């Protein structure tokens, strides 16, 4: 582990300035659970680590009439236990509770969870000079691909590791970024970017950009959501596949639906075909199994991850079935 300078800034603009000034040599740190393991493995060697711990207000979780505002420094434990989140955004509370271990959830943050680097073991090992680290090979494509993407991979078949992202995309969250040019906001799914955009990153963050908060729209009374995560180990494990579904059901019909898969693609993967099929459909006419099949249409499994397609398809089916039952 190489030495670095630890800069605890007190404003976002200060952080932004430091990150912009030395894009290659600086890294943002929140809870540190991800960054430190990267530094120890020698994957990144920042000269400066910029901490947001002392920036006021970034940890706040605020519920208002127009929805919620979640500070990027809010911990997973805080999200998991927040009464309004549990009441109106169940998928988010469930996703937060499913992450890692209590110790990690106590320090891991919303922003850190969304911006964490992939858990691909080829990326995580300094012994593999993979594309994401500037090399020319994706080792997973012909290697051990058990935990890799079946959709949207291409030149780099990582899966996005964030559980919160899957829930938040289905909950129509928006991300707000403070950067050198001021503040901008976007639908959370646009915050993530696959290898086709930039193989070295998983988000649209540019040098100097800081994710400051995530906002959620006000829930309608008939809105329900669920998060399900299949994993090999019931604690301290990433998703083999996860699904977050959010649905508004009223008068026997689906008014609105969003379904997002995790663990299958380099970004949280929206199942648009199934969403469209649900739109306006009478509850009685919905065929959850068919929706599950749609979810993985076009999947291109690798050598070791064929199981992910039926797994994803079944999780979608279960999530939809559960929400329709709840809504009925």
């Amino acid at each position, binding site marked *: *582990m*190489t*030495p670095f300078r630890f800069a605890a800034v007190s404003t976002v603009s200060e952080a932004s300035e430091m990150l912009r000034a030395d894009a290659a040599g600086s890294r943002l740190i929140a809870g540190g659970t991800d960054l430190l393991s990267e530094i120890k493995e020698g994957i990144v060697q920042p000269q400066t680590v910029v901490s947001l711990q002392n920036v006021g207000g970034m940890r706040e979780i605020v519920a208002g009439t127009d929805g919620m505002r979640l500070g990027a420094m809010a911990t997973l434990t805080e999200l998991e236990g927040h009464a309004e989140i549990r009441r109106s955004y169940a998928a988010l509370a469930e996703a937060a509770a499913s992450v890692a271990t209590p110790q990690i959830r106590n320090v891991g943050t919303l922003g850190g969870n969304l911006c964490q680097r992939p*858990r691909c*073991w*080829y990326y*995580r*090992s300094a*012994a*593999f000079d993979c594309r994401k680290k500037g090399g020319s090979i994706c*080792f997973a494509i*012909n*290697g*051990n691909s*058990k935990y890799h993407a079946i959709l949207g991979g291409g030149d780099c078949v990582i899966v996005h590791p964030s559980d919160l992202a899957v829930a938040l995309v289905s909950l129509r969250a928006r991300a707000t970024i403070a950067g050198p040019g001021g503040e901008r906001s976007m639908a959370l799914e646009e915050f993530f970017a696959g290898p086709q955009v930039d193989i070295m990153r998983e988000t649209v963050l540019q040098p100097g950009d800081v994710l400051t908060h995530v906002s959620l729209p006000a829930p309608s009374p008939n809105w329900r959501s669920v998060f399900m995560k*299949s994993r*090999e*180990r*019931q*604690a*301290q*494990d990433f998703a*083999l596949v996860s699904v977050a579904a959010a649905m508004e059901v009223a008068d026997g019909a689906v008014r609105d639906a969003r379904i997002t898969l995790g663990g299958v693609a380099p970004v949280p993967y929206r199942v648009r075909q199934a969403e469209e099929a649900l739109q306006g459909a009478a509850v009685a006419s919905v065929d959850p199994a068919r929706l599950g099949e749609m979810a993985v249409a076009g999947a291109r499994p690798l050598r*070791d*991850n*064929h*199981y992910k397609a*039926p*797994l994803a398809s*079944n*999780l979608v089916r279960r999530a939809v079935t559960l929400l329709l039952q709840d809504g009925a």
Partner: protein
Amino acid sequence: MTTTADRTTKTNRKYRVIGTRPIRHDGHDKVTGRAKYGADIQLAGLLFGAVLRSPHPHARIRSIDTSKAAALPGVKAVMTGKDLPEKATPPGNFMETLADPQVLTENVMARGKVLYKGHAVAAVAAVDRHVAEEALELIEVDYEVLPHVLDVREAMKPGAPILHEDLRTRTTAQMPGDTPDTDGPTNIASHVQFVQGDVAQGFKEADAIVERTFETKPVHQGYIELHNSTASWSTDGNLTIWKSTQGPFIVRHQVACILNLPPSQIKVVPMEIGGGFGGKINTYTDAVAAVLSKKTGHPVQVVMSRKDVFEGTGPTSATHMRAKIGATKDGRITAVEVNLTYAAGGFPGSPVGSGAGTCLAPYKVENLKIDGYDVVVNEPKSAAYRAPGSPQAAFAVEPVIDELADKLGMDPMEFRLKNATRTGDRQASGVPFPSIGCVEVEEAMINHPHYKAPLEGPNRGRGVALGYWGNAGMNSSATINVTPNGSITLVTGSVDIGGSRPALAMQAAEVLGLAAEDVHPSVGDTDSVGYTGVTGGSRTTFATGIAVIKAAEDVRDQMIKRAALVWETQPEDVEFKDGVFTSKKNPEDTLTFQKLASRLMGTGGPVTASASADPKQVGPSFSGMIVDVEVDPETGKVDILRATLFQDVGTAVHPSYVEGQMQGGAVQGIGWALNEEYFYGDNGVMANSSFLDYRMPTSLDLPMVEPVVIEVPNPGHPFGLRGVGESSIVSPMAAIANAISHAIGQRLTTLPMSPTVVREALVNGDK
């Protein structure tokens, strides 16, 4: 539910202390975090060592340039394999280890060639860990990368990359120095074979035959505490090593071999140990710390990282196995053929021999042929792991037994019981079994409510399997000193991994009529107690127990003489019972052990006794598991609904620790069955060398494992003990595989049976 406590209390009414559950002597310090482990050692002037490891699985070392590292401020010394004597020389041998000393030294630090990714090539000592790690990056190693081989079958093919040019295949009949089987270079280090009867004829007599091929991956022992060594070389030439080890005397011997030192100049101080499971027997960083200490004149501490542990220390062998079993319609096994190929890692020494020797233990088989191959591959040198070699082999044999029972339309336990092995039956090796409890274990399984409980619902299945471990005897020493208030100190050479301090103290207390709390047990260093073999082979409570009993009996006899002196009578006239000495001539003359202890001065001085043990009749341990699973057909995930582990323990000295051993072994078996494996990249690099990516199950993934203690006393121990530490890991993988096959109608033949594998079986059918 009957608890084991009830049973034990009833069984062992004849003992005062054996069979009770006192609080462990080391418990408070461990629970409150005060216990001292190897990495807690702090010494004045302590330097920190770090080890450079090979990035390649197979390469020739052309040169190593350490000059830049040595020049880094804060670096005090640098070493390579050249700093170790070229030839490891054993200073005699107490049978401390069967490992070849030359292999040990070349595994500790490569010379000429690196044989696996993670093989140590150089080391530095510096003022702190970070400087030491930084210095490693400045060491320039010029490698000529060679083709590597990971899979045992590939390694056996003609034209495979050869790891050791001078390696020739040995067979069991050969002793070192005999002419080998092969005359050309090979990766097959040895071939063991057991043959009895006429296998071809046996299969002819069979009405049904099942044959299958199995594969397992390397799995790690997974102890939580990392390997560590702190060495201090004094100016008078004596070396002290503090460390986490299962066997301080083994470390002493191995370091003596590697450094060509007399054992008496080395003192090994075993610290508390955070798990070993067989993986902390052989030396890794001790000689490195010692050489760095000698070079610098400072004590040096080396602590591995988790990555070092995964990549540089032994997992247990990956295997490729085949089992073929035939039986008659009425359920008699007529012939068995087993072929076991075990990956040794970079140097010879897989546990294929014990796999071959144990895999048929539960069955009386007239016609058998077992072949075992020890094959070197470019992976870390394998190390012992709880019942080394036996769980893999059971995973090959027990599912075939199960399938054969299915085929014959017989209940799988009934089939097993019909073929059960009994005291005096011949083992695969030809040696007759001593007193064993195979039938008792099987009957306990059949009669247990779990076996009869209904299991309803789709995708659910029940599986059974048997396990066996022969247990070890070896040698142990113990010393007892009587203190003035009648409490005693007990020093043994056995590192306490699984509660051996209380279990040994209880045996001394039983002999001397004391309470367990009156005995203060401790683990001695190699200077303060007689030679004692490794804490391994499930031998400690049994064999060190015998040394303790002998020392306690000596104390008792000395105390009887003191009482006789006090009463001016003869020792024969003194009776000792339940801690009280009584004069037979004058029954009013009584002295408690405590009273008499206060009168030692004046009656001949302190009472002290040392004894060593060389047990002849080791008690093997049979075990078995009944397990219910539910398979999620959509995800392939396996949930364990209920698990019961049965084991013949001889006599349960401290039933809680016996149950703990049984549950612990079962839990490791469950991890091996469902979760754990080394993933290698094509470049020979382990891809999941962290506890995050190497998925050991957590408490949330595990069921309650109900332990059923069966006590068939071992005549080879005064209190009837058998070793209990290992047998429990042998059956779970096979039992779970059998349960899954009953749940989904497909036989799984590879480990781990992860969701991926189960899902594939459901989609693609029987492989």
